[in-house]
């Protein structure tokens, strides 16, 4: 950074790496304004005394600019992103709600069908298997457009519940496949043994199969989470005043051309669950994708 005498007081310039030159950003004599600017836009946390000290150096230098560098906090771009982007925190909470609801819907409905798929022969089993393909035939964007009316009729338009209802359509099919694979991997004989010892079918499922399936089901839940968390386009169409986190990041990506660092911070905040997800599911890959093929 560079500070020198300006027209209104002290002129602050910041080194721009891309232009390889100093860019003047603020000209003021007000210590508070200078400090607030540094906090808000530069991600620095100076005290008033530190700012005054630099200003005194400028006075002492007599017309020569003073160069100085302050180390930025490593997470400062993130702090700035959440402070500058209106809505980021409520949007984050909404996104988490949507993801949680999507998990509940797809795992309960899809998981039940997945269990039926793994354990029974029934009419329409093939159709159920191919549903993964046919719900993907129509582009998601196109489905979102008539969904506006359907969700409005249900009173969940522009609410987290509405979006999770839409996301579950795509997720349920995959959940059926994944849960079917998982249940296939758990021998029926275990359930039968439990029933021989007097358990009902329900007890056998909840006491024996479900605990054994739990890690795989958690991996399936993370699939649902990522699906809901990442989705952006339908969220743009189906939200008005309550955007999701991905929509907020999308808007900074389109809007703020000069603030690449903020876009990157938002993008990374969005990408974090992806890394956690990957770390968790890698061990369950063959359990999840092993059983069902087209």
């Amino acid at each position, binding site marked *: 950074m560079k500070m020198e005498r300006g027209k209104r007081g002290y002129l602050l310039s910041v080194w721009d790496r891309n232009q390889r030159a100093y860019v003047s950003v603020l000209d003021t004599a007000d210590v508070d304004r200078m400090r607030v600017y540094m906090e808000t836009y530069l991600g620095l946390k100076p005290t008033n005394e530190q700012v005054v000290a630099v200003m005194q150096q400028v006075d002492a230098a007599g017309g020569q600019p003073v160069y100085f560098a302050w180390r930025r906090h490593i997470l400062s771009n993130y702090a700035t992103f959440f402070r500058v982007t209106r809505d980021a925190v409520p949007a984050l909470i909404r996104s988490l709600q949507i993801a949680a609801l999507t998990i509940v819907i797809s795992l309960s*409905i*899809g998981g039940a*069908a997945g*269990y*039926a798929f793994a*354990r*029974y*022969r029934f009419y329409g089993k*093939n159709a*159920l298997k191919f*549903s*993964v*393909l046919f*719900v*993907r*035939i*129509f*582009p998601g*964007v*196109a*489905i979102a*457009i*008539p969904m506006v*009316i*359907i969700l409005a009729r249900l009173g969940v338009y522009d609410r987290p519940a509405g979006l999770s209802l*839409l996301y579950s*359509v795509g997720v*349920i099919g995959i959940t*059926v496949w994944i849960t079917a694979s998982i249940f296939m991997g758990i021998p029926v004989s275990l*359930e*039968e043994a439990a029933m*021989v010892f*007097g358990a009902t079918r329900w007890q056998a499922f909840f006491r024996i199969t479900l605990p054994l399936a739990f890690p795989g089901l958690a991996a399936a839940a993370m699939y649902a989470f990522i699906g809901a*968390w*990442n989705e*952006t*386009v339908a969220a743009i169409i189906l939200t008005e005043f309550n955007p999701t986190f*991905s929509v907020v*990041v*999308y808007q900074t*990506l389109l809007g703020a051309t000069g603030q690449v660092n903020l*876009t*990157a911070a*938002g*993008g990374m905040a*969005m990408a974090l*669950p*992806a*890394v956690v*997800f*990957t*770390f968790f*599911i890698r061990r369950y*890959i*063959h359990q999840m*994708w*092993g059983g*069902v*093929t*087209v």
Partner: protein
Amino acid sequence: MLTWFHLPRRHTTPLSPYLLVVPVLLYYVAFWVQPVLTILIQSVRDPQTGAWTLNNYLLVLHDPDFRPALWNTFVIVSVSVTLEFVVALALSLLIYRRFWGSGLFFFLMLIPMALPPVATAAIWKTGLTAHGWLNSLLVHAGVLAEGKRIYWLGTPRTPSWQLLALMILVDAWTVIPSVMVILVAGLQNLPKDVIEAGYVFGGTSWRVLRDIILPMLRPTIQTAVVLRLIAAIQIWLIIVLLLGFGRLPVLVERIVYYHEEVRGLDIAPAMTTGYTVIVALIVSLAALLYLYLSGAFEREAA
């Protein structure tokens, strides 16, 4: 009689699987069939008068961007599905071999799969601009002279095949992991003794791969490719986020363009539904054709 009570009746209750499947069915009817029917009906009605008509489709076919969009989509799908499949297969065979660090390698390779499109776009947008990290990297590596830049995202005069190639590469980076995951799972579930027998009887790696592994892996390959095919035809978001609307028209991009960008236009609703149904038709035909040609239906019948 006693045993009848105590032994479980094995899979004889005919009602219970249907009870478990009915919720999915109802869900699909409410939130998939309903919007799809709405689109289908709208696509054959005049948006203003509501009369039955085929004009919406004619409008789409006469759209000057329809042919380029169709061609671009075709090129992207044929090149990227082939490329992604070959690379993903090579990688999954590599991981199947298990080498030192293969676990970490697998983990790192998987990350792009779960990245949100917005983050992918942020990564590549910051990388591919003239001042981006890719050019900086090349300058540091000495490949590019100091002060020189490559305009990755092109200028308005850049020929579209260069943009196509770039989009295919960016898309491949994102998508290869999800193809790889399915293939790795398929490989892990193959019976190991059969493969070992192939080597015992003197097969080379190449022959074991061609005559044992690939035929046994066929259902998995069909699953991975058909899912990929369906998604590839619907590519648009990464293109719009990196290049903006209209520079490299593809089919689904046109849907969004007419619905979001020029929604005031008289023909916008007609174009939106028309394009949607045409895309759905192309996707279904492509998926059916692939499944038919790859023999998935014969296996089903057998």
